[in-house]
């Protein structure tokens, strides 16, 4: 039992995509341009080469937000989406009929279609692999050269993520939607 969340010290991201490759290898994601559980949104400076405003540079790793109020969960007509005992938004694969309501409902573009399994797939915080083995890291977190991600139990006040969120400023994405995401971006 845990309430897993993830904090991103995103200013440390160098856009190397080690996380994306580690995720694909860990979770057996099919190759193909649209298939990924996590990605990096990039913003780079406008303007002229001689006068670039570097403060515009932003590499923003992101993935499923594991919203406390998850639009995908409510949207699924087959009740295929559920929240597991660790607070992770999951899917009963056999109930998914690719109605795609979850994809349309997700404000974060977190889901894609796994054509091999014929389901909509997304980040599970490595629930089927690492967490199932009793490990408490995700593949993306561990492999990162600059350790952008802090992963852990939000309900444990002693966890690194809880301590970090207590001591540092952060924001969440599209907080106005009331989805209560569990990915936190550190300032």
């Amino acid at each position, binding site marked *: 039992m845990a309430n897993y969340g993830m904090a991103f010290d995103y200013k440390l991201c160098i856009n*190397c995509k080690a996380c994306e490759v580690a995720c694909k290898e860990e979770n057996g994601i099919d190759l193909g341009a649209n298939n990924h559980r996590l990605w990096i949104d990039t913003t780079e400076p406008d303007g002229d080469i001689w006068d670039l405003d570097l403060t515009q540079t932003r590499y923003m790793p992101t993935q499923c937000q594991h919203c406390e109020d998850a639009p995908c969960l409510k949207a699924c007509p087959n009740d295929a989406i559920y929240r597991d005992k660790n607070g992770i938004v999951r899917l009963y694969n056999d109930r998914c009929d690719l109605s795609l309501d979850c994809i349309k409902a997700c404000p974060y573009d977190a889901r894609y279609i796994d054509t091999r399994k014929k389901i909509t797939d997304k980040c599970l915080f490595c629930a089927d692999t690492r967490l199932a083995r009793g490990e408490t890291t995700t593949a993306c977190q561990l492999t990162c050269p600059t350790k952008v991600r802090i992963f852990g139990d939000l309900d444990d006040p002693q966890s690194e993520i809880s301590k970090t969120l207590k001591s540092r400023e952060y924001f969440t994405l599209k907080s106005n939607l009331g989805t209560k995401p569990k990915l936190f971006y550190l300032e």
Partner: protein
Amino acid sequence: MKLIETSRRRFLKSSVALCIYASSSFGKNTQLFNQSNKVQTTLINIPYLCNMCRNKCAGFAQVENNKITKLNPNKFFPKSRNMLCPKGNAGIDAIYDKDRLKYPLIRIGNRGDGRYKRVTWDEAYEYIKDKLVNIIDTQKDNRSTIAYCNGEGFNKDEYIKFFGDKIGSSNFLDEGSICLNTKLGATLLTIGDVGEMDVAGSDFVLILGANRFESLITPDSIDLVNKKFVVVDPRATVTALKSSQYLPINPGTDLALCLSMIYIAIKNNLYNKQYVKEYFKDFDKLKSHILKEKYTATWASKKTAIPKEKIEQLTKDFFSSIAPLLYMGRRSVWTKNDFQLRRAMVLINALAGSINRKGGIIFGQPISLASEEINTPMYDNTKERFDLDGIVYGSSKGGSWLNFRDKVVNNTAPYPVKAMFIRKHNLMQNMPNIAKTKKMLNMMELVVVLDTIPTDTAMMADVVLPECTYLEREDMVVSFGKLEPSLALRNQVIKPLYESKSMQDILKGLGKKLSRPLFDISCKYDSELQDSIKELGKDGAYIDGGYDLTELYKKSITQRNKDIIIPHFGQKAYDNLVSKGVWYDNMEQYHKEIFNETYEYYPEDKKYYTIKRDYKVNCYLEKLSKNGFDPMPTWRDEYNFEVAKNHFRFITGRYVNFTQTATTNNAMLRDIISTNHIWINNKIAKKLEIKLGDIVEVKSPQSSVTIKAYPTNKIHPSVVWFAHGFNSTSEAMTNSYNNGANDNEIIEDKFEKIYGCATMHHTNVTIRKI
């Protein structure tokens, strides 16, 4: 704005309907990657060292039922600090690449056309023996008629011991002369050591051209992210975009910037006078030279296109910092002034006192490993290498590729080179002027390639010997690091797949086949050997003279590692290397987690920041002036940056996902970046009506390529860039064949004369939309 090479996520929503029933364009090997929801119980983790690039990070390979299912970082290694980059993670796809070389092959078609027949190892060895015996007999036992080369850091010394020490050739070539020898040489000749950069300890890092966030070298790339650093580069790389200040510069003019920094520091007394007094040799010569030449900021501004005020401010910021570091990059030979540039960079570090101290160029205390003694034959008729003729210094180990190749193809070498043994060195893609490399290989009577994949170079081989990958072999233990030294061991994770073998096993097999026949040729021509035979008999002379080529491989690698490690460092060190992959003194005590999977390896007071050593900073190199070169860094008008109207200077570099040619066939990495694009300044592109994705022809005086365009504001208007390593011509490399453009097709082959290094950033090109 968005990079074309990055996120494809936005594509998803609009194309959902289209892709529901479309299958993936690539299919992974489902047998290996079809992960079920249940967790296997037979999971083991074996420590290994990565080989996807030069850096050598440490990892743990997760093995289930003899298959590698995941590669994870190793938290014990001070050098790579618990991380694996995208390439490291994609190592699995290198092991299970369907294009791998699986069996020994003998050519049945013409060189380059890719027609081979599968043979047994014995047939391959037999073929090599017959050819080689004939060649060496014809050359009257001049063993240097064999050239041998190696592009992989690991096992290089083993390879040299076989072909150099045992077989007796003088002609070894490696990647140094198409990479970083000017930097190594300049540092060595100036401060007596190649050093190590302490990025973590510096409070101000100045980077000229190096791209540490897209060409990862640990721990530098990791440490840099928390630093204040300035990047000078004609191209706004990711490193530049993440810097505190980015200064675009005219390519090839970094030396002018450095000379001006030296001028300003001396003129304004900004340099560390105490350090200069204690360590500099010939400082007075440097001072008068620099002041006489008047390398002012105004002067440098005209050369570099960096505003005068910024040069002045940069110099002040650098010299007023506590521990400034002018960072020396890699793959760094840009133009013919490169050696002088690297010297100037070392001198600037030295003027700031940033040598042998925290945050500077560290000497440190690497762990030394005992060398294994072998009995080396003396060949009377073997001739010296010739590729350093006309080179002032040059590396006596790895030589000069372009000079070597020129002498071979022009028939100006003092003796014919008739055979080449090429190990993991893709000559047909890795150096400028591919047509010339092809000509050189076509002049050989025997070309043997040892590699893991069917490269363009393998397609030129008569015999292809499939080597296993880094995860299928144990290697000799390696000493890493100077500031935080450690030993690291590449353990074998799985047995070699198919019929591939480790390099040692290949050389052992070859040695068994070649030892006696090659000895017999020496008996014919070698008078010293003939004397020895008279005294000891033929068998006695064979044994006494060390002609058994398999001597080093009588013992297994495991046994040899034990023999090197246990007597010097103890059983516990060996056990640690086997179970954790890493060992250093007091590791259990020192190694501890700081926060979030980040570790400390040595306590601050145990790091080897400063060591006792007598050394001098050499301002003046007499040997250079004797050979007609500037003994101190000097600007020459010929270094000025100029391109004719409608021309661009072509420069090359990296994407973070690819190292060199070997990684561009990797299915996983290709999935992240599908091809290379040419960067062209957006304003120029608009004038030329070139849009994103347009195919353009890039033409140099040497050749031309076609490539997709990427108009961007991130590049100097007179410069174009694309990444190295693309467009294999070998059809057997299914992902990299005919995909993108190859930089070495258009780069003119020129080399600087101090170290004989190929220069990469001197070619001017035109661009035409087609």
